[in-house]
C-alpha cells in the first residue's frame, strides 16, 4: 500500500500514519481505533477496517490475533424521531 494512501476517509488517516502507530506499539485494531478515531466517523469502520487488518498483517501480527472492533448500533443512520416514536416536528 503506498505511503500516502488514505486508509480512513472519515478521519483522514494515511497508511504511513498507521504504520508509525503500529511501530509505536499499537498492535491491535481496538487500540488503533482509539488513537486515530478510526471507525467512529460517518462510515463506522465499513471502509477502514480491512485496510487496518492488512497493515497489521504486513507488520507481522498473526492473523488469529487481528480482531475487528465492536460494531455499534444502530448500524444504519436513523433519525432520532424514529427512535422517539414521533413524527419530525412533533413534541411530547
Amino acid at each position, binding site marked *: 500500500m503506498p505511503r500516502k494512501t488514505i486508509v480512513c476517509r472519515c478521519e483522514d488517516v494515511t497508511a504511513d500514519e498507521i504504520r508509525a502507530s503500529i511501530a509505536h506499539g499499537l498492535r*491491535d485494531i*481496538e*487500540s488503533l481505533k*482509539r*488513537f486515530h*478515531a478510526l471507525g*467512529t466517523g*460517518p462510515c*463506522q469502520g465499513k471502509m477502514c477496517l480491512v485496510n487496518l487488518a492488512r497493515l497489521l498483517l504486513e507488520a507481522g501480527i498473526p492473523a488469529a490475533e487481528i480482531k475487528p472492533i465492536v460494531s*455499534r*448500533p*444502530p448500524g444504519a*443512520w*436513523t*433519525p*432520532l*424521531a*424514529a*427512535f*422517539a*416514536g*414521533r*413524527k*419530525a*416536528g*412533533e*413534541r*411530547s
Partner: protein
Amino acid sequence: MTGPRTIIIGGGIVGLSLAWNLARRGWTDVTVLERDHLNAGASARCGGGVREQWSSADNIRIMKRSVRLFESFPQDTGFNNWFRQCGYLFLAYSDEQAALFEANVKLQHENGVASRLMSPPAIQRLVPEINLDGIVVGAFHQRDGVCFPFAMVWGYAKVCRELGVRVLPGHEVVGLEMRGRKLTGVATNRGAFAADLVVNAAAAWSPRIGEMCGVALPNHPEKHEALVTEALHPFLSTCLVPMNSGMYAAQTMRGELYACVGLQKGPAADYDPSFAFMRKVSRLLIDLLPRAAGVKALRQWGGFYDITPDTNPIIGYVAEPGNFYQFHGLMGHGFMFAPALSELVADHLAGGKLDPDIANYGVERFARGGLEAEKLIIG
C-alpha cells in the same frame, strides 16, 4: 531505587494519572496493570465533561484544581487533550431545583468560581434553538467544558512511560498474594508481580479486586449509555444539563451531537447498548432541541458509573491488608476528578501528607453511616 514496589490495578485515567504523579515525586518502581487495551473502560466511554460547578465545597475545590490541570495538560505532557471550555449550562425545571442552583452559585462564589444564574431570555440568546418550556432558571459557568477522553488516557500513558512507569495492557489480575497482614504480590494472566504497595484503581470492578484479599467494598456498577449523531453545522455552543432528566448533551468540535443518560439506578450486569435508551434519549433531545428530530443517530454505546452508597469517592488505606490502598468510587465523574485527586493521593502515598479534601473518603466511613451526598451527579 526509590519508593516501594508499587502495583496499580486499573489502567484508566485514575491509575495512569496516579502512576505519573508518583513517578514525578521520585518513585522509580511503579507498574500499571490493565486487563484490556488502553481506553477500554469508563475513561474512554465517558462524555468527557469537566466542570467546576458542584454542590459541595470539597468537590468545588478539587475540581478547580482539576480544571487548571486540564488547561495545562498539553504543556505539562506534550500531548494535546482537545480541552474545549464551552461552558456548562444547568437547567432548572422546578422552584426546588432553582433554589438548589441559587445555593450552589453562592457556594461556588465563596470558593472562587465565577458561575452565574441565567434567566430564560439569556438562555435563549446563548442557545437560540432551545425549547424553553418549563425552564425556571439556568446556572452557567464558562470555564467548564469538554475534553477528548481518549487523548487524556494516551497522554498520561505517554508521560508515565517517559518517567519509567511500566504501563501493561493485557494484564488481568487473577489473585492477590498475602503473607501475614500484608500483600506481597499480584497474580495476573501473564505471571506474578511482587509488590510492597497495591493500589486498587479498578473503578466499577474494584469490589472484585477487594474480594481477592477479603476486603468488602460497597460500590456497584451502574449502567449509563451514550449516543452520537451525524455531524451538523455548529449550533450548540455549550454543554446542556436539563435537571428534569439527568441527561447531558453537547455538540463536538466535529459537529456531532452527543448525549448521555442512565436508564435505571442500581447494579447492572453489563453495559450493552439498549433500544430503550435510544427511545429515552431521543425523546429528551427532541424536547430540549426540537431540530434533533430530523438528526440521524450514528452510534451508541454504554459504560459503568462506579457508584458508592453516599455518592462520595473511596480513597485511602484499608485496615487490613495494611498496604492495600483504595482509589475508586468516583460516581461516573472520575474522568474530570482524576487529575487533581491523583495529586492529593500521590502526596498522601509519597509525602505522607493527607489533604483534608480527601481525608474523609476512607472506606471505614460507611460503618458510621457515610458522608453528606453530592447533588450534582448527572448523566
